[in-house]
């Protein structure tokens, strides 16, 4: 008799609760300036994305949008750890990673609104944020591909011996697609300086990762298949992420080849703007909301003796920056329709015939 796996009801599976915070992370050797940067980056992403969400509700953001609310510590940890000339490869859930590399808020928000002053002049939209100038080498909306593309940048670094590293972010659900396998394997075979970072937020779109992956840690439990070390970090703790990032980046820079890091986290909202996220057990949502990386990090900094005033100043500055960006984005003109016909080719045009 062949049997189907037992089917736990939708939205009614066992809740997956967060581990308690490891107090040792407060002891990690990270200087206060870096910690303040980590705090600031998380704040920026949080406030920016909350605003983006408000603007959806006001009907100003027309397409889809995928927020990282709750997952900010990962983008911040890597943003602070990466060298300015390192490369980020993000997914459709890429606002956080774009901001974390220093891209200003206005062009990002204007892009979400489809304005001419958008980062991509309105041609890319929320899912394709890119700023080559800041090392943000694209946000990719079809699962898996960008892991392969990141290897190519890493290859350039290896070829030119520049010490640059390519970092690719992706989700738990992505570990099931073929391109994930090809990319990680290829990076190891070619010994490329690529760091693969799985943000395991426990769900693909609406389906629990436990339903669709046969191992508890969908990235880390597969590392050995590529001769890599299994690495799991607390993705809600910026210090833990930062520390793991520094280690993996150093390894890559020094010819030690790729790493695969799995960061456990949770998104506060739904998968995309269309999704209320009702498939998640209440208890699970509540437990993870209690593990919100930002208040937690705020507490940590206070515990480490940082002055509350410095933290609230960062929050205030960030809020002001969001206001400015909002105004500039809303004031942005619509793109020139002629831009439909630009930039297919490197000559700036689109001509396919004479």
């Amino acid at each position, binding site marked *: 008799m062949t049997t189907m796996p037992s089917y736990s009801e939708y939205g009614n599976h066992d809740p997956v609760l967060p581990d308690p915070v490891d107090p040792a992370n407060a002891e990690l050797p990270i200087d206060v300036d870096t910690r303040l940067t980590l705090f600031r980056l998380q704040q920026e992403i949080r406030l920016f994305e909350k605003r983006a969400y408000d603007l959806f509700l006001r009907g100003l953001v027309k397409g889809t949008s995928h927020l990282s609310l709750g997952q900010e510590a990962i983008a911040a940890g890597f943003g602070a750890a990466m060298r300015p000339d390192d490369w980020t490869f993000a997914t459709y859930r890429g606002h956080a990673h774009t901001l974390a590399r220093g891209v200003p808020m206005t062009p990002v928000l204007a892009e979400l609104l489809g304005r001419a002053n958008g980062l991509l002049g309105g041609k*890319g*939209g929320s899912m394709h944020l890119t700023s080559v100038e800041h090392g943000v080498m694209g946000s990719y909306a079809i*699962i898996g591909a960008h892991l392969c593309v990141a290897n190519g940048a890493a290859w350039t670094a290896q070829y030119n011996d520049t010490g640059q590293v390519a970092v690719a972010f992706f989700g738990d659900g992505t570990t099931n697609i073929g391109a994930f396998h090809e990319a990680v394997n290829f990076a190891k075979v070619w010994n490329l300086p690529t760091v693969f970072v799985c943000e395991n937020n426990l769900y693909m779109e609406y*389906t629990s990762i436990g339903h*669709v992956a046969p191992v508890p840690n969908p990235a880390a439990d597969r590392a050995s298949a590529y001769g890599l070390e299994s690495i799991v970090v607390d993705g809600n703790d910026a210090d833990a992420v930062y520390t793991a990032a520094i280690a993996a980046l150093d390894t890559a820079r020094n010819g030690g080849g790729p790493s695969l890091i799995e960061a456990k986290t949770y998104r506060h909202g739904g998968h995309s703007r269309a999704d209320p996220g009702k498939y998640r057990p209440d208890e699970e949502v509540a437990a993870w909301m209690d593990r919100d990386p930002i208040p937690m990090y705020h507490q940590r900094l206070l515990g480490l003796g940082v002055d509350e005033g410095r933290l609230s100043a960062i929050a205030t500055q960030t809020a002001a920056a969001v206001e400015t960006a909002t105004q500039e984005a809303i004031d942005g003109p619509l793109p020139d329709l002629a831009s439909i016909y630009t930039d*297919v080719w490197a000559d700036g045009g689109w001509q396919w015939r004479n």
Partner: protein
Amino acid sequence: MAELTYRDAVSRGIAQELANDPNVVFLGEDVAGAGGVFKATTGLLEAFGPKRVRDAPISEQAILGAAMGAAMTGLRPIAEIMFSDFLAVCWDIIANEIAKSRYMTAGQMSFPLVIRTANGGGSRFGAQHSQSVENWAMAVPGLKVVAPSTALDTIGLLAAAVRDPDPVIFFEHKSCYPMKFDVPDHDGDIVDELGTAKVVREGTDVTIVALALMVHRALDAAERLAGEGISAEVIDVRSLVPLDTATILGSVAKTSRLYTVEENPRLCGWGAEIASIVAEEAFWDLDGPVIRITTPHVPLPAADSLEDATIPSVERIVETIAKTAPN
């Protein structure tokens, strides 16, 4: 007569076929528990249970491989590929395996399966979630290709696709999902016929051939052209393979002028195929150039203002025809 959205027509069509034949099964990503990201498959899990309506990992090759292997051994799978752009990640299974295996095995195997996928623009999703790729499928021998424009056609053509013994790629248009249509009351199952185009508006001066969302725009354009004294016949192609060339050639014989309205980018679209058939077989019927109105050969931009100016609009159809048609 009931009102039904195109979106609900999809789930009604699938439900009808699951009820009709115990060998029909349905799989895809987020289709069961979640009812699909377009909410076009809600209620199916509840009605038919997890054995017949099944969620899959993000593994499009595995999904279509499973559909193929199941079809060759007696099931009749319906597989969802969430966005038609993603056909590219499993194109080998579609174009090299499913399409060719019956032929290569001299007919030893059959592949009664349907691949449903959300096609087309208008949702401001950008270049990787908005493509119209029905021409990719049409270009591969061994695939049947269907793209309905109304709720009734969605039910009937989906049923025909599921009951067809060959593989069918079924393109649902994202911008049609929310549209409401009258569906006549009907005793028993609604089952249409593949390979049949429909004259959805009669006319005498020009023939407009369109597909999916573009049918609605062509109809609106025909209405406006009537105001300018041009009588346009509008044909909803519905099925690219098999192709109802008789209906198209018949119309051109009457009007002597052909326009195609395509959402796929310009080069090698289905419009080029139909234009070429007409330029060969109805050449002596033609009173003027065959004109294709298409999305220009560029990837689709994301911003609403740009996207609307890229895909053929009612205005562009009216202007192009008014400028070039005799009246």
